[in-house]
């Protein structure tokens, strides 16, 4: 992507309405282009400031108490609005994106196989499930390689604070650790205890926004 194309797409990027494939291309560019990165940072600041256009609204009685009570008993799950099964959302219109990213996911899966092939004494079989964005875009894969769990996400950014969390069926959340950049993808691998109790895995940004999520392969 060229600088002029990135600057054309920058407003939609900072407004959060750019589709997954184009967003990935823009982020890949800004990863190594200081000028575009600065332009995007400036526009992003303006979008943040647009919140000032909203007049404050006085909370109803007891609002603060309800927030405090909810925070105290919070089970660590996402709200229902963010947990609609993204993989079922409007798949037809996303086929071009899915096809485009599928190749990347396949490559990631192959990378996972080769990553495990040398030391593995097991069967070498791989099962993987998709990691999808809240909008239903395919972003990576969860793999089960001879019992070890590996997550690979093709998110081209130099923001190193993404973390992988596991959400259990009882609603509890545990951080498995940060994703690290390796061989062209953000990755995590390791053991996940009690896999039968796992509802899903998710990648979370430092601001709490869920980047993508996926389930353990059956």
């Amino acid at each position, binding site marked *: 992507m060229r600088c002029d194309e990135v600057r054309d797409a920058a407003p939609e990027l900072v407004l959060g309405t750019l589709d997954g494939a184009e967003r990935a291309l823009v982020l890949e560019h800004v990863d190594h282009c200081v000028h575009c990165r600065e332009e995007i940072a400036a526009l992003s600041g303006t979008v943040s400031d647009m919140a000032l256009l909203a*007049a404050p609204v006085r909370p109803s009685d007891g609002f603060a108490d309800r927030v405090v009570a909810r925070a105290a008993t919070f089970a660590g799950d996402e709200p229902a609005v963010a947990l609609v099964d993204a993989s079922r959302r409007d798949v037809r219109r996303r086929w071009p994106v899915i096809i485009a990213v599928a190749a990347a996911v396949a490559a990631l899966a192959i990378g996972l196989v080769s990553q495990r092939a040398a030391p593995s004494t097991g069967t070498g079989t791989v099962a993987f499930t998709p990691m999808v964005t809240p909008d239903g875009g395919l972003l990576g894969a969860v793999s089960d390689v001879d019992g070890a769990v590996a997550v690979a996400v093709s998110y081209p950014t130099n923001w190193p604070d993404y973390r992988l969390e596991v959400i259990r069926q009882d609603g509890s959340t545990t951080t498995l650790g940060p994703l690290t950049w390796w061989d062209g993808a953000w990755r995590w691998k390791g053991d996940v205890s009690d896999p039968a109790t796992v509802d899903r895995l998710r990648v979370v940004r430092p601001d709490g926004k869920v980047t993508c999520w996926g389930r353990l392969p059956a």
Partner: protein
Amino acid sequence: MDVDDAPDDVLIAGLAAGDQAAARMFVDRFSSRAIGLAYQLLGDRAAAEDVAQEALVRAWRHAGTYDVRRGSASAWLLTIVRNLAIDTLRLRRAVPFDPMTLPIGRLADDEPAAEDEAARHDDASRLRVALGALPVEQRRCLLMAYAGYTAMEVAAIEHIPLGTAKTRIRTGLQKLRLSYLGEPRHEATS
């Protein structure tokens, strides 16, 4: 330092450390702005409180990940509010409606405001003046995009080509930025 006087980022540090007084002050300080933004995007008081509550709880839970170098505490929280409100708004789109009927849409109809001396020293006022100075078609497209509508959706609603929608969003945001930044910035947080 009394917690009442604590700067926003200190409150967040208190949240991360599990300080109940800091948590309560954080909620008290930001609730009305969080609800206000959610209401502007949703036009529903109850839903706005639900979204604001969820955002505050998330901020509380993830306070340890807040990085002051990436922006003010209020910008961080209000970004969470906006994202949650947009998610909620998307769920409503099974029934098509004109997003300009939402409270945020009223901003598109505002007459350009004269910039007075007071407005020069208030970020919200300067931003409103800058928005009001945009051509109304750019204002509409920008506000719809702010409410989470893609350029393709904006094009369909406005009955304009996709390229025109993208241009209006891009030009509107860039003009807003240039106009808004015409004066020295002031800290936007309380």
